[in-house]
């Protein structure tokens, strides 16, 4: 496309921005009736138990209680809550309510009543007898433990992911390229390091919530704060054991997702209540439920073995990941793949051999799920930290060692399904980052007059753009009166701005203003099929579907215009607001074409296209952190964070920048403050925003974001993705900076002040 872009590449306002900023009703609880059953779940106080008796008689007698359900009332067909394309790689290991309880917070009973007071009273009156079983709380002890989290015979996996419930194994796998043993044997330097990251939370501001009712056709109408309306439909059909044709799912505005809402966490409970009672119902998760029965990042222990030459050429990488999926297997078999699959290919440059192997185990803590980065974050923390340590040990500049080894445009990435790095400016990202950040000045360790230490660290990252060969994005574009368009999608804008970005693409294709495009979605009845918004797919996959639909629609518009102008279509040119004959002799306005389509016309001015991609072109980025560390207290303050991102063509620079800044700050939280601590009975202490400390605006430091766009031929207007990659560099860059300041490598997150202060005290550096 040679002409100058008018809408793509512009920092236009998000289409919903002013309504949201002015607090207009937009979210689930704002737009659904207040007059409906309140649904709550009684949650297990035990990490592992079997219900040996449950008495709901007293609870049912509470005035205002409509229903109390236990494991005896629900369908006995297992399903998964993971919002993934069918057949899901996640095992079918759930029931709506199970007799076996697998973590503190697992669902024991569902209570529905007229108001919250009645439901709370009823919850207190349910009498449960628990047969308490030994829990598995340490994921390192889960594999082949005599205690089984899923001993049931009807547990099953639809896909071959190496799962074996009789070994507490949710997935297992290995892949390699080259002769890893031989290359290691030939390396000057071989390092092996083990890293531990915890099950941190998305902590989106709007908790999980769902409203359900029976509509006038007798179907189950579900309004849910979800990223995946079509997956919700299938999962509810599986869970309730009813036909998918009986379910209609839509989403309103979503108060943040970050992957959490790619799992059907809340939906089954009100859906079951409504299906059984015929009454409208609503479930709003408390923050405590969100923290204790949500869908956080997979805890992982990642071991990296790296082989290199003395000059810093990285020749071999062997990554082993032990992943903790918790009580259920949602996203267990898939997240783990990214811990190696998005870290090893970064070093394609000189890599001669690699191996990636993993085990994913069940334990008795809350089930993990999808969180921005989806395993890549954990793997990149490990690999990037190891590479920085290699550089420090060899006395090579950590930027230089990356320039020497990084993947370059055009290279085939053996550890990335042999996909080519078709569009890659990682080298430019790194050099520009170093220049703008002032790496040469900030990398040397400096001391302030009050005894604090300033230091810097670096990391780089990649992610994907959709799931290759799996994700489907669709768009439907319709011309309406006055010549405006309605774009219907089932990608889910969760605040990211994809409604606006896709409207920008539509406007670009149809040569109109973004204001001429109304966006609708997501709705399983009205929207064309889309896998949903996850895996950094929407801009890249659904964006391409928008382009295709627009091409098709233009043809239809011209066909109708040809009828109106009584000339062959081949003589017509689409000019946005009008269609003209090439010789300039006649034209018809878009508005007139639209009107004509509604009177005596048999041409539908609507086009729907789907898109799927056989490849998943990675976005790349470089990040550098400058910290100030107090060696006596261990306090780490982020002073500056510089990021340079290659997300391909930047569709909306404002929104891409905010995506980046938001991801950086989430990752700063993961690196420094967001802790997860279970006690010996499996209870999580960080069960609120009081205890689970996400960053405030006082700990972000100054963020500086730039783009170094490549052009990805397979993406819309050359775009790749940005949603997830932005969370991957801060943890390793900050850990590196802390090493520079202290001489200690911290391989477990979060890096709390205490760890640093006590290490330095033992070194004799901290206390005076």
């Amino acid at each position, binding site marked *: 496309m040679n002409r100058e872009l008018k809408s793509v590449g512009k920092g236009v*306002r998000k289409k919903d921005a002013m309504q949201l900023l002015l607090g207009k009703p937009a979210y689930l609880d704002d737009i659904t009736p207040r007059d409906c059953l309140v649904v709550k779940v009684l949650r297990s106080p035990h990490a592992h138990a079997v219900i040996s008796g449950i008495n709901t008689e007293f609870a049912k007698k509470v005035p205002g209680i409509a229903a109390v359900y236990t494991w005896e009332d629900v369908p006995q067909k297992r399903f998964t809550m993971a919002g993934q394309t069918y057949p899901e790689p996640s095992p079918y290991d759930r029931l709506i309510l199970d007799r076996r309880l697998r973590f503190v917070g697992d669902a024991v009973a569902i209570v529905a009543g007229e108001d919250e007071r009645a439901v709370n009273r009823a919850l207190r009156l349910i009498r449960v007898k628990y047969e308490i079983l030994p829990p598995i709380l340490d994921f390192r002890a889960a594999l082949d433990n005599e205690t089984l989290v899923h001993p049931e015979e009807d547990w099953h996996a639809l896909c071959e992911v190496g799962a074996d419930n009789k070994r507490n194994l949710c997935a297992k796998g290995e892949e390699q390229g080259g002769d890893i043993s031989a290359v290691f044997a030939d390396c000057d330097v071989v390092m092996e390091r083990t890293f531990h990251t915890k099950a941190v939370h998305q902590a989106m*501001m709007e908790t999980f919530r769902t409203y359900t009712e029976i509509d006038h056709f007798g179907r189950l109408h579900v309004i849910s704060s979800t990223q995946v309306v079509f997956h919700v439909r299938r999962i509810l059909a599986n869970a309730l054991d009813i036909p998918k044709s009986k379910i209609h799912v839509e989403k309103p505005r979503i108060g943040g997702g970050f992957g959490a809402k790619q799992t059907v966490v809340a939906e089954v409970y009100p859906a079951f209540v409504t299906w059984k009672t015929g009454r409208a119902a609503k479930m709003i998760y408390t923050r405590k439920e969100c923290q204790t029965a949500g869908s956080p990042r997979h805890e992982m222990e990642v071991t990296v073995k790296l082989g290199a030459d003395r000059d810093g050429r990285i020749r071999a990488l062997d990554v082993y990941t032990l992943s903790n999926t918790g009580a259920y297997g949602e996203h267990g078999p898939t997240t783990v793949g990214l811990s190696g699959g998005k870290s090893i290919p970064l070093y394609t440059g000189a890599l001669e051999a690699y191996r990636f192997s993993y085990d994913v185990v069940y334990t008795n803590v809350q089930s993990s799920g999808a969180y921005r980065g989806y395993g890549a974050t954990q793997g990149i923390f490990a690999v990037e930290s190891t590479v920085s340590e290699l550089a420090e040990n060899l006395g090579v500049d950590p930027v230089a060692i990356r320039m020497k080894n990084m993947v370059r445009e055009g290279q085939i990435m053996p550890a990335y399904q042999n996909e080519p790095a078709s569009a890659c400016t990682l080298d430019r990202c790194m050099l520009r980052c170093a220049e703008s950040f002032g790496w040469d000045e900030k990398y040397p360790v400096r001391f302030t007059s009050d005894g604090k230490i300033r230091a810097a660290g670096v990391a780089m990252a990649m992610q994907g753009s959709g799931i290759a060969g799996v994700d489907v994005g669709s768009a439907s574009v319709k011309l309406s009166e006055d010549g405006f368009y309605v774009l219907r999608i089932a990608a889910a804008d969760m605040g990211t701005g994809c409604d606006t970005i896709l409207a920008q693409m539509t406007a670009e294709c149809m040569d109109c203003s973004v204001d001429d495009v109304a966006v609708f979605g997501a709705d399983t009845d009205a929207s064309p099929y889309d896998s949903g918004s996850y895996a950094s797919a929407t801009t890249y996959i659904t964006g391409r579907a928008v382009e295709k639909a627009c091409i098709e629609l233009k043809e239809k518009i011209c066909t109708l215009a040809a009828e109106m102008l009584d000339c062959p279509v081949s003589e017509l040119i689409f000019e946005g607001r009008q269609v003209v004959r090439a010789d300039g002799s006649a034209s018809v306005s878009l508005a007139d074409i639209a009107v004509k389509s509604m009177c005596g016309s048999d041409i539908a001015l609507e086009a729907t296209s789907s898109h799927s991609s056989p490849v998943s072109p990675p976005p790349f980025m470089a990040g550098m952190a400058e910290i100030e560390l107090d060696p006596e207290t261990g306090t780490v303050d982020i002073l500056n964070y510089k990021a340079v991102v290659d997300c391909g063509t930047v569709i909306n620079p404002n929104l891409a920048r905010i995506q980046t800044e938001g991801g950086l*700050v989430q990752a700063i939280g993961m690196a420094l403050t967001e802790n997860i601590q279970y006690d010996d009975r499996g209870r999580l202490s960080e069960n*609120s925003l009081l205890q689970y400390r996400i960053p405030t*605006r006082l700990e972000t430091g100054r963020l500086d974001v730039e783009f170094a766009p490549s052009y990805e031929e397979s993406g819309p207007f050359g775009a790749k993705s940005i949603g997830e990659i932005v969370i991957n560099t801060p943890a390793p860059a900050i850990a590196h900076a802390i090493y520079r300041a202290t001489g200690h490598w911290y391989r477990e997150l979060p890096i709390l002040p205490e760890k640093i202060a006590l290490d330095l005290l033992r070194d004799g550096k901290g206390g005076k």
Partner: protein
Amino acid sequence: MEITLTLNNKKITADVPPDTILLDFLRERGCPSVKCGCETSSCGLCTVLLDEKPVLSCSVLAVRTDGRSVTTLEGLQDEAAEFVGFIADQGAEQCGFCNPGYVMNTIALLRENPDPSDDEVRAYLAGNLCRCSGYEGQTRGIRAFLDARRAGKL
């Protein structure tokens, strides 16, 4: 218990149970801008003005507003509209769920300190959590508004 308060400049009388929290009361009374993000007085999403001061409506019993004035974003649309476009120009509203609390506290800040520095903005808004934006875009938006106002461009 019967209470009389001024809600968004309108005097209203209501019969409320003593343990109804102001947040729930306001949402039931047509003020859906007031959001709940936690149960621990930690997030700032439910910020409203109580006798002109910003408070967490999740931590106020509705009965304690008897005889007082409560203002939500529904009652301050014009004052908010003066500056929120600058936030929109940054794309910093993102999911928007924290926006009403953040906008309310910004209004309180700007009434108390009409020309704050960026650090004063950060300090005053420290109790307003946002998980999407990384905060810096919000600060840039407020800065752009203040600069435009100072330059007489509003």
